[in-house]
Structures are given as structure tokens and as C-alpha cells.
């Protein structure tokens, strides 16, 4: 990481610590914001957070490694979490899974080499009556079919600029 990037990250965490207060109760909210903005929580971010809150960095790591929405592994700009729990499983989530893997060329648990998409499993996301369901970052999609996977991915790609899409002739919704 460049020195300037490090300084920028440290300043960012410092302002988060000021916003939430420098106590242990601010730890999870700070980490959530770092994760949302940088798509990862690296050891440097954990060290800075620990210093600001006056705790040992291993304490920060213990929290980062516990929660599914934190985690120290870098993730893509769009994290797609497909629900694998019973009602979605009975609604043929496996077909959606295969189509996601085919369209992105990665397996679940992986990130595309360009850092745009990550595929992950979610445990019950509370859409059991409308499965199969998935989350794209914070948005929820229900009654997903293998055919609608492409449209969901294209909608994300549009945010990257038109030349990033698979097909040039995108119909904007």
C-alpha cells in the first residue's frame, strides 16, 4: 500500500472513531464502515483501529474474523450472497448458484480477478416465502431464476461504466 493511501485510511478511521466515540462499543460500527468503503479490513486498518480504541490488535482481529459481514479477506465491489437455507434450497437455489458461477467464471467463496464481484453463501436472509433470494451488497432480490441472474449482474456492471458490460447494447431500465 502506498504511504499516501495508508495515511488516508488512518485519517478515515480516526474520523470514524471521533464520530462513534473512542470506546469498545464503537468497534463494530467502525469496522462496518471500513468494510463498506474499502471492501476489506486489512491488518493495517485493524492496527489503527486498535490504537484508537486502546485495545490490542488481536482483539480487533477476533471480532473481524467472527462476523460473516466483516472478515479480513478482500471482497469485490459487489458481494453477492445467495441464501442456502432450507426454503430457498427447496426453491432450487442450486440452479441459481450454477448460473452465477457460469456467468462470473468463479466459484462460491471467490472474487473475480478484476475485483468486481464476490460470490458468497448466506444463511437464511428472511425471504423464505419468496425464494430463491440473494443479496447484492445491501439490496435484496427475490424469486431469482437462472434467467434473471444475467440481468442482476448487468445492473451491477452498468455502475462500472458501459464498456465494462458484457454486451454493448444495454437496455437501461
Amino acid at each position: 500500500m502506498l504511504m499516501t493511501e495508508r495515511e488516508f485510511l488512518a485519517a478515515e478511521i480516526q474520523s470514524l472513531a471521533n464520530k462513534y466515540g473512542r470506546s469498545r462499543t464503537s468497534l463494530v460500527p467502525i469496522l462496518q464502515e471500513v468494510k463498506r468503503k474499502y471492501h476489506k479490513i486489512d491488518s493495517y486498518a485493524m492496527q489503527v483501529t486498535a490504537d484508537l480504541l486502546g485495545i490490542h490488535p488481536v482483539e480487533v482481529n477476533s471480532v473481524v474474523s467472527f462476523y460473516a459481514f466483516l472478515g479480513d479477506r478482500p471482497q469485490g465491489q459487489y458481494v453477492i450472497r445467495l441464501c442456502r437455507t432450507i426454503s430457498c434450497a427447496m426453491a432450487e437455489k442450486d440452479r441459481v448458484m450454477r448460473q452465477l458461477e457460469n456467468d462470473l467464471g468463479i466459484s462460491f467463496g471467490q472474487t473475480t480477478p478484476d475485483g468486481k464481484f464476490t460470490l458468497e453463501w448466506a444463511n437464511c436472509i428472511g425471504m423464505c416465502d419468496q425464494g430463491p433470494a440473494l443479496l447484492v451488497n445491501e439490496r435484496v432480490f427475490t424469486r431469482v431464476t437462472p434467467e434473471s441472474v444475467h440481468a442482476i449482474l448487468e445492473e451491477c456492471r452498468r455502475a462500472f461504466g458501459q464498456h465494462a458490460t458484457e454486451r454493448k447494447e444495454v437496455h437501461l431500465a
Partner: protein
Amino acid sequence: MSQIPTFNAMPPNLGLQRALAMSPMEIVKEIADSGLKGRGGAGFSTGIKWELAAEAVSDRKFILCNADEGEPGTFKDRVILQEYADLVFEGMTIAALAVGAQEGILFLRGEYTYLRAHLEAVLLARREHHLLGENILGFGSAFDIRIFMGAGAYICGEETGLIECLEGFRGEPRNRPPYPVHRGFLDCPSVVNNVETLAWAACILQRGAPWFRKVGTEMSTGIKIFSISGDCERPGVFEFPMGITVKELLRHVGGEDARAVQIGGASGQCIPASQFDRAIAFEDIPTGGSVIVFGPQRDMLDVIENFLGFFADESCGQCTPCRLGNRKLLEGVKMLKAGTCSMAYLNELCALGETMMIASKCGLGQSSPCAFLSVVRNFREELMGRAHTLTHA
């Protein structure tokens, strides 16, 4: 979108206005008289919980709303928060008046982040209307609510796990006692109530305890909101009186041909068709409202494999019976599916399940073997001697 008729009929904030005119003890008594029990699934008396927190001596107390709805098959809290958020916040404010708390926190699961903007807007409107803040409706009581986002851990639905997360730790449940009503968030007395429980508390203050007791059974009073999914014609959110039989419920949602129904989510019980006359109530089949219907084509081993995979993944790992037990049970189900499990080993797995129920520290490990044990008990003839497949455990 699903509608909950009883909640629709509630004029806003009437319960809060009535509560403001009452003494804390009168509010607690009204809730206790109604017989309201925790709607998250554990079924602890809300009246007793509030009474203990009210008696606790501390200059700082908290009302924590548990919106970490992670139990497989449960989604009624999402609907309540989407459509009746005011009722929930009203219930939290009433709880605060009853126990003398000034701070409230809504613990919203990370998967429901898309609800947050709406909830913040509702909170802002309530502050503007003096339903929250320094001087609620001019009665001099102070109470405010903030939202805390969960970070993707089923175990944080357990009340002490939730408090650990709020405090910035891994969501590992604590030993109880001390209970949160005595030493909860930041060691202060804290009431942790489910979203639906708080909404009902607001309704009870509005209509009175006798109104609530009119439906339901002696031990399980009132109406319950159910989340229904799986193999039925009309999945969704429904309200039914406590004590409804499984058969009747299935008739309402168009799932009469079910071979089994999972009640209470993955940690609940698997009820076979032969027992569909049983009642859904705390004295018979307890539930947090999750009902998953399994049609005639379903293989029950697939079902428990899914559940045990869930528990193996979501166990916090601090106690051995749960951390390793769920993995061993999952392995066992895979052996059964592959046709490589001896009867002696199946019996050993059942003994392991019973041990987990006794020896685990919190509700996760104490209840995760339930589905496995009830499937082994009720569908035993389907489990053994399956054709060998290539998927060895």
C-alpha cells in the same frame, strides 16, 4: 405485501398515551395480566422480565429490541418492521416507561440493512412529534432509540450474544445468570425483547389485558404472527390465535398434503403428518412463528442435512458440544445419505444429540439436535440401508 389485520386496526400511539398516564408498576401489571410471552421463540413471560428490570436499581437501563431475525424460515419481524415500525418503537417506549430506561437500541441484522433508511425516517418523525426525546408528549419522561447494525451472525439473536456484539466483542453467549435484566449491556439492567413482543405490548396497553387474553390458550395467550414457507400454495406472513392445530394452519395456507412440518425454525421440531392434530402453543409445540412445510416429494435427510450445515456454520465455537457435535451430526447425516451408517452408530449419534441438548452453553447447541432427533424418531424406516452413492461423508 402481507398484512396483519390486528396491527392494522391499532390507532397510532394510543397505547403510549395510556401508558404515560399510568405508573410503571401499573404498566408492568397490565403486561403481566395479559400473559404475553416472548414472541422470539423462548416464550419467557414479558411481564416478569419487565418487572425484574423495573426492580433493578441502576441509574442507567436499556431497552434492546432484538431484530436479529436469523432463525431459518422466520421473516415476520421483517414485515413488522417494514409496515408497523411505529408500533414497535411505541412498544419500546412503553417498556422504557415501565422499567425506567432512557436509552433504547434496535439491533437490526446486517441482512436487513435495506430497512434501515425507513426505520431512521420513522424515528426522526417520532422525535419531531415528541414521541421520543427529552420530554415525551409533555409528560417529562426521556427516551430515545438508535439503530445498531448486526454483522452477520445467527448467534447474535441469543440475547447475551447480542449484547456482546453491541459491546464490540465476538457474539459469544454469556453464562446466565446474571440475566440481562440484572446485568446486560454495559453491565446495566437491560430488557431484550423480540420485535413482535414489543408490538404486542403496545397493542395490550391500548386495548387492555382482557382483550389480549380473549384468544389463545390458558398458558399461551393472544395472537401469534407466523412466517410460513415451503411447499404450500400461500406462503407468507399470517396471524393465527395461539393453540391453532397444525392441520388447521396447513388448511389456511394450502399445504394439506404435507408429509411433515418444521415448527420453530431449524432449532424447532419436525412434526410428521401423524401428529398434525397437535397445537402450536408453548405447552405443546413452542414456536417463534416459523413454519416450513415439506411436501410429499421431500427427502427428510436433505432437510436435516441443510439444518445441520446451518448450525455447524453458525455455532460460535466457544463450547465443545455445540462446536463439534453439530459437525459430527452433519457427518452422520451424510453417511446415512450415502448408505454407510450402521444402526449402532446411528444410536450413538442420537446419544450425542441428547448430550448436546444437556451440555451446550446456550440455546443454539441445546436445540440444534432437535430436528435430527425428531426425524430419526419419526422417519426411521426411511433412513437406513440406502443405496451406496459416490458422495462419501
